[in-house]
């Protein structure tokens, strides 16, 4: 039932990798995060291959978002090691992670309400005509072009990209956030509950974008509570419980009830037994 990807054994005990290292886009070893006395993330070994769509599931407070915040360097990890695209990495901030190619659609939509679509897509890494430090001149035309290309690639439709975000619907906002990943040719996309706040039609639109990414061979980590969505869109499901990984399941080998059993703690995979 377990996936063939080794996520739990590391160091000298690790068996020969069954996957070529070049095939792995992201790998974490012993990733741990403590907030004071709270152990939000404990010893997480995780792996995702190129072109693979992996779902992260778990109850509220299980450590899903915390895990994302560590690999995107929004927060600094307490312990553990991360490899990205074949290299050992130590990101010192979210910009470094983004520049390396990890694009994240955050749960709380990292968009600035009063800025328009190109401004938001390029927030923090604006295109510059002349480099004068903080007073560098912006290349509005270049950003607009790249924005249109990114929206086209994801199939996102927005009536007027010069509209500010505050005047857009939840679905449009989410699409802008997702289009950001396409604009920057990311190597790994992470989406933290992208459809949690959306209506039915908007959810379909976002799911279609995710399918487009799959067709294009873009790897994706999807955090979601929606079992149907996960079963529809992902190849593999990794379940978190109380800060630890408790299951690593291939979609074809599992079922919805099975996953729920892992989430609630009714079941734990034998190789994760010590975590339960």
């Amino acid at each position, binding site marked *: 039932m377990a996936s063939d990807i080794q996520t739990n054994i590391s160091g000298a005990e690790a068996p020969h990798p069954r996957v070529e290292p070049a095939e792995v886009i992201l790998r974490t070893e012993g990733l741990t995060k403590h907030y004071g006395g709270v152990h939000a993330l404990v010893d997480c070994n995780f792996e995702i291959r190129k072109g693979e769509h992996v779902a992260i599931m778990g109850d509220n407070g299980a450590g899903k978002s915390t895990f994302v915040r560590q690999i995107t360097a929004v927060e600094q990890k307490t312990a553990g090691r991360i490899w990205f695209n074949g290299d050992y990495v130590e990101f010192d901030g979210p*910009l470094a992670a983004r520049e390396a190619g990890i694009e994240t659609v955050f749960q709380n939509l990292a*968009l600035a309400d009063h*800025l328009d679509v190109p*401004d938001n897509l390029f927030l923090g890494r*604006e295109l510059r005509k002349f480099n004068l430090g903080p*007073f560098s001149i912006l290349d509005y035309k270049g950003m607009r072009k790249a924005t*249109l290309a990114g929206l*086209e690639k994801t199939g996102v439709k927005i009536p*007027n990209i010069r509209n500010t975000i505050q005047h857009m619907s939840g679905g449009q906002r989410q699409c802008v956030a997702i289009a950001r990943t396409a604009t920057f040719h990311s190597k790994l996309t992470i989406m933290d509950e992208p459809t949690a706040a959306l209506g039915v039609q908007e959810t379909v639109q976002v799911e279609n974008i995710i399918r487009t990414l799959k067709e294009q061979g873009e790897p994706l980590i999807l955090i979601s509570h929606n079992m149907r969505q996960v079963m529809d869109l992902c190849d593999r499901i990794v379940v978190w419980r109380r800060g630890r990984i408790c299951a690593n399941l291939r979609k074809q080998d599992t079922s919805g009830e099975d996953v729920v059993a892992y989430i609630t703690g009714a079941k734990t995979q034998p190789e994760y037994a010590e975590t339960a």
Partner: protein
Amino acid sequence: MAESPHGVGGLAFDASKRGLPPEAGVAIGLALIVLAFEVLGRFLMNDSFLFNTRDNIDGLFNTARLQIIILQVSIIGIIALGVTQVIITGGIDLSSGSVVGATAMIAMSFAQVGQINGIENSRAVFFEQGWVDLPLIVPMIVALACGLVAGLINGLLVAYTGIPPFIATLGMMVSARGVAKWWTAGQPVSFPTESYTAIGSGMMPVFIFMFLAILFHLILKYTVYGKHTYAIGSNEAAARMSGIKVARHKVLVYSIAGLLAGIAALVLSSKNLTAQAGMGLMYELDAIAMAVIGGISLQGGRGTILGTVLGALIFGVIISGFTFLRLDAYYQEMVKGAIIVGAVVLDQWRQKRAAAKA
């Protein structure tokens, strides 16, 4: 995806679809206030507010009045340019008036003459050290440095201690006023050099204000600095997650506000030919009011320099208009207060309507 006349798949940059800029409302307000004074003037004073009515002077407009309208708000306007940027980041700067006072005192004491009518000016602050008749560049650098240091302290407090900007700049407001009084134990500093008095003479304050307004308008609109200023005010968490160095940027914004207060002090003390510890009292509130009338949102993320300039002009028109109607200054203040509140109420109403339309 089909190509349509509106771009790919309905995506388009369509300039015609953009609504009126928020400054249009402020400009209309300005025009209405001018019109009101014009009409009142025709009825009550039998004179024109805006146009030339004297036979011995050529010209369509009452140029002297127009000049005064803008001259009397130029110095506070310079402060307001900095305050605007602080407010756009979602902060507030209460210290600018006191910083003007302290900076004026300190800078002026480096700009005093050595002799008055052939008699030694022994009351000059640095007379004993012989620092009199210094070249203009010295007091200028001193003024800019004073403003910059005050702004830098504000910025560091706001960015790195996590205390609200209101408190940080309130502290600076009180302390800087103290510095202004302590510098000469309350004595005014007078008799500046000729080159120093040139800075604020005639219409120079207006030119300096306009130059700085255009400069910062362009900076906010076309540079990374401007974009990050709006982004932080709009959604600080998003800005941080996007990799913008929020703390560093805030220090920069507050420093620039301090620098502009320093420039205002230079112009004010030069124009008045003297510096007093009480200079610039309540300027910070007038500057904030100009920004607010100009459509700058105190919640941050919204507003432009153009709006603040229009807000400053509204201030100037009201002061001139009341003088023109020979009404007491008490009424001026009452109406100014009402306009500040009215401008925000109108702006919120406009925002709601715009949101409902979209």
